[in-house]
Every structure is written in C-alpha cells, then in structure tokens.
C-alpha cells in the first residue's frame, strides 16, 4: 500500500542499516552451520580411513602397538544402553502417564519440576552419585552401574515427551472408551497410550540418542575395560570412553582409531535423530493420534 506520490519517509541511513542487518543475519546463519559441516565432514574424512572390519571386531592392542580395534567398546556400549533403556523407559513412561492422567495438580507440578531439574544436573554429578550408590556397594565398577547412570539420564526426556504426547490425545477419545464401560486403567493403556504410541517411541529414541554419546557418567561407573565383558557386575568398555582415552593418548595410531570410533558413534546417533525426524514428519502428515 505504498503511495507513489508521497516522498519516501524512510531515510537512507535507516535503509542502509536494514540492509546491513539483513545481510549480517543471513551470513551469521551460515556461520552457525559451518562448524557442523566442518566437524562432520572432517570426522568422515579421518574416520573412514581407519574404519575396517578388524576395527569393529577386535580388542584394543596394547598401548603403542599398531592395530587392534574397538570391538569391545561397541558391544559394551550396546549392553550398557540396553540396561539404560530397561531402567529409563518404564520409569519415564510411568511418570509421563502419571503427569498426564493424574497429575494436573500440585503434586504433578512438583514431579514436573523434578524432571526438569534432573534434566539439568551435569552428567558427571550423576556419575558420581551412581558411583557412591552402586559401585561402592558392589565393590567394583560395573556394566550395571553404567547402565543405571545412563538410564537415570533418560528418564526426564522420556517423561516429558510421554506426557506431551498423552496430552495431545483428545479427551473425547477417553470419554468414548469410558462410556463403553472400559475401566480407567484399560482406557489409559489400550486406548490413550496406543494413540500416542508413535510419539512416545520418538521421545524414547531421542533420549537414547542423547545418552548414547555420554562419556562423563561412565567414567566412574562402567570405567572401561581392555577386554570383552558381558557380565553386568564387571567394568565394561564403552565406545565414548575409548574415544576419550585414545584421543588424549600420545599415540598416533590411537588417534586414528579415535576418529573411527567417533564415526561409528556419530552414525549411530545422527542416524537415530534422522529416523526420528523422518518418522515424525510422515507420522504427522498421516495424522496419527
């Protein structure tokens, strides 16, 4: 709605500032993306070279020697994450159900606040706590302790996303089920939870992606191991731990392997996040829940 007769009232100075600001902002957006691209591409570049079958399946070689791999770390991480899921997911979903269906009151607010606080606790502090509670009791570092620490870290994410997804299920669905004479608990489990299930799975996957790369909580719980370990009560190697140890070591070959390990880890995590994004997008278009 510009009147061509009226002389433009925006002075040159303001126009210049506007143009400068716009350009700067666009440039900044690229600046932010740059590190991501840089990191990921460098990772692939350095990691691919060292990635081979032996890396994925072998044990670490003694320090200073060439060869060896991070097989035990990959398997160890897998087991630790399994324990984490077994602990974190039921607790998270249960709490989420509580908050959504029974928690629209001040008790619910307290639990919600607790979840947020727990989310913000530094992972190293969680590691320290689990050390004090589990490792000291068991008298050794263990796979279980590592799993517990990571499981605790999963809980707030799973709780909040479960709550959110359940709240998105319209009340009319609950009423329809109750009206049929379905008891409340069955309504929650078989109708509401089922409607929200795809969103809840998404939340779990995101929580998983977050803890899969965590190192600090494992420092004093799983501790690491040069050899294979499948027993829950013994120290266990984990991929992030090995990457850390190798990275700060003085050996070039270990540095190489650290990049390979990082590549494996990043593929796992980014893969999970990408799958989540794809599924969410399609899920929303299909109108689940």
């Amino acid at each position: 709605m510009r009147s061509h007769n009226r002389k433009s009232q925006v002075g040159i100075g303001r126009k210049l500032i506007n143009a400068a600001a716009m350009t700067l902002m666009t440039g900044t957006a690229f600046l932010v993306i740059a590190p991501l691209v840089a990191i990921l591409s460098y990772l692939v570049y350095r990691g691919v070279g060292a990635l081979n079958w032996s890396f994925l399946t072998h044990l670490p070689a003694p320090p200073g020697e060439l060869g060896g791999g991070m097989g035990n770390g990959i398997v160890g991480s897998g087991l630790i994450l399994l324990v984490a899921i077994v602990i974190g997911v039921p607790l998270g979903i249960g709490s989420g159900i509580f908050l959504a269906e029974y928690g629209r009151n001040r008790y619910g607010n307290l639990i919600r606040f607790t979840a947020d606080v727990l989310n913000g606790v530094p992972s190293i502090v969680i590691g320290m706590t689990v050390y004090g509670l589990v490792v000291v009791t068991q008298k050794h570092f263990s796979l279980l302790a590592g799993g517990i620490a990571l499981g605790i870290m999963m809980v707030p994410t799973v709780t909040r996303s479960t709550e959110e997804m359940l709240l998105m299920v319209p009340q009319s669905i609950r009423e329809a089920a109750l009206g049929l004479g379905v008891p409340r608990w069955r309504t929650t489990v078989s109708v509401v939870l089922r409607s929200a299930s795809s969103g809840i799975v998404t939340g779990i996957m995101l929580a998983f992606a977050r803890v899969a790369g965590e190192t600090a909580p494992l420092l004093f719980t799983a501790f690491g191991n040069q050899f294979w370990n499948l027993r829950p009560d013994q120290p266990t190697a984990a991929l992030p731990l090995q990457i850390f140890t190798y990275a700060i070591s003085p050996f070039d070959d270990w540095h190489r392997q650290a990049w390979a390990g990082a590549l494996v880890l990043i593929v796992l995590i980014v893969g999970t996040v990408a799958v989540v994004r794809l599924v969410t997008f399609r899920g929303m278009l299909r109108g689940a829940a």
Partner: protein
Amino acid sequence: MATALYISPGQFLPAGDFRDHGISLYVHAHFHIALTIACYSQIMSALPDAGGLLRLPDLQPPPLRSEERKPAARPRIHIPMPSRAADGAFTAVVVLAAITLFAILALIAIQLVAHSRLSLHQFGFRFFVQSVWDPVAGQFGALPFVYGTLVSSFLALALAVPLAVVVALFSTELCPRKLRAPLSFTVELLAAIPSVIYGLWGIFVLAPILRLYVEPWLARNLGWTGLFEGAPFGIGMLAAGVILAIMVIPIVASITREVVIAVPRQQREAVLALGATRWEMLRLGVLRNARAGILGGIILGLGRAIGETMAVTMVIGNTPQIAKSLFAPGYTLASVIANEFSEATGDLYLSALVEIGLALFLVTLLVNALARLLVWRVTRGMPARAHA
C-alpha cells in the same frame, strides 16, 4: 413469518400411563396453527410429504418389522467384568514411577551432601576462595576451578548468544519457507553431537587452527587488552570457550525461536504500521517483547556450559591456575572431577571433589529453575508447536 407445524410421530399410549396432562385447547394466533386432537389427523393427511423428513403420524402402532428387530432370543455375550482392584493397582504403579523420579533427585542431593561432609566440615566455604589446589600437599582450594568455569562459560555465551539469537530470528522471520526445516534440523544436529566428539575435533582441528592462525592474530591486534598474552598453545581457555559456544548455540537458538514465535502478530504489525524497516521491526516489535524469554534461554545455555565436562576437559589444558590471558590453560569444576575422581587418594581428597560436585549441582539447580521461570512466563507454559 413462517408458520411452524409441530407434529408428533403420534404413537398413542394406553390411557393413564405416563403423566398425561389432559387435553386442552391452545391457541396462538401468530405462530401456531391451533390443533385439537380431533382435527389433527385430518389436517396431517392433507399435507404433502416434504422430502421424507416429515412423517405422517400413525395412529396405530407400526407393524412389526423384519426378524432382526425382534428382541433376539440368542444368548447375550458374556463380557467379563473387570476387577476393581486393577484400577487401583495401575494407579499405584504409575504413582510409584513418579515417586521414584523424585527419589532419584533426592538421592543425588543426599549423596552429595553426605560424602562432602568431611570437606565441608574442614574447609567450609573458604574452599571456594582459596586459590591453591595441591592434593599432594593437602591443599584444596577450588578458586581456580571456579574461575575456569566462569570464564569459559561466559566467553562461550559472549560468542554464542549473538549468533544463536540471529539464527533463531533468521529461521523464523527471514528464512524462505523451504529452507526452514533443513536449517532447524541442522541446529538440532549440533545439539546431538556428543561432547567427546567435540573434544576430539577440538584437540586435532580447533586447537591447531587457534595456535597457528587465530591466536597470533589476536595477540598482534588485541594484545593491548591483556587478554591475549603468552605463548599460543591452541589448547587453553580460548579453545574451551569456542567449543562451549558451539555446544551452547543450539539451546539458546531453540528457546529464542520458541519465544519469538510466541510474540503475537499484532506486536509486529503495530511496529510495521508505524513505518519501521524490517530490522527495526525485529528489534522493537519482536526482540523487545521476547527479552525475558531470551534471557531464560541464555541462562539455560549457561547452565549447560557450566556442567559441560568432556569437551572442555580435552581442550582446556587442565592446569589449576588463574591467569588473565585467554591463551593460558585452565581448569574447570567439572574437569577436575573427571580427571581426578577415580584416582583420588584419601578421604579428604575425595570429599573435596564431592564438594565440588555439590557446588555444581546447586548452581545448575538454581540456574535451571531461574531459566524455566523466565521461559514459562513468556510462553505461558506451552511449548510453541511450530514446524519449521
């Protein structure tokens, strides 16, 4: 003034059944046709059947229709009655889960306090202002770590906040629609990269770049500030600040995005209507209103930076000293725990480290609570469901 005919589908009940109020004549000249029961059927039979929606009243009960409608003689399906206990049990399980969540947090707090008691008792709060950390000599002063944490975190924020806010503004206001999803995915991805990989990249890529190019440049041009003195190692406070900045950008950006989207359209339009340029609209109409929320996001980012362990440990140099120059190596609260906890000898040493952990816990608790409060106030507790 349409005349409304009120017809009943007319099924007569045996007299005396339900509340029959007797027959009375009712006349209302403007709106009704007055009917007596006697005239009713005569008039009705003269009316056209309008589209099947008006029914001619039957004065006899309708003939029995097909077999299916007869009350069936088949046995009713037995639907098992659920036990009432099940509801109670389910509620109990769910409440237990919620209580466990609370118990975990409580346990963390209790553990931290209990195991740091020795050190608290011994040093009290002087612990955090003494500047010598020499466990071998029995000296536990945590000031270098406090300094390291604060400097690296604030440096990170100084670098990250402008970038994050700009990216957020860009993705919500300026970015062409099609690029929005990829852009926000990219920022999300930055948040997904594990700390240890940032550290790895920091050691082998960032540190050399800083050492070879950035730090010499800074020393030459900004050396007068006193912040860029000493030998450029690459590893040090500056590296830690830069890495932390990259890690903090996604948090600040996503919160900023949410609060910016929550600013109502009218605010933007009002500013534009006054003849503002786009940039001015963003500054006055959007940022000004979203200030509190952005501050909340910054504080959340601060919380993250303070608690960040691995990446910082790998690039900060791990030297417990207080130095003015950003080139110098340092040490943070989280890093000292990571490096020395498993090798701590002696109860006092361990207790001192736990006390550091307690401090971290309390600080992040405070910071997060404050941040949530600010963010909730702006977005009224509802996360903006915006799809980039």
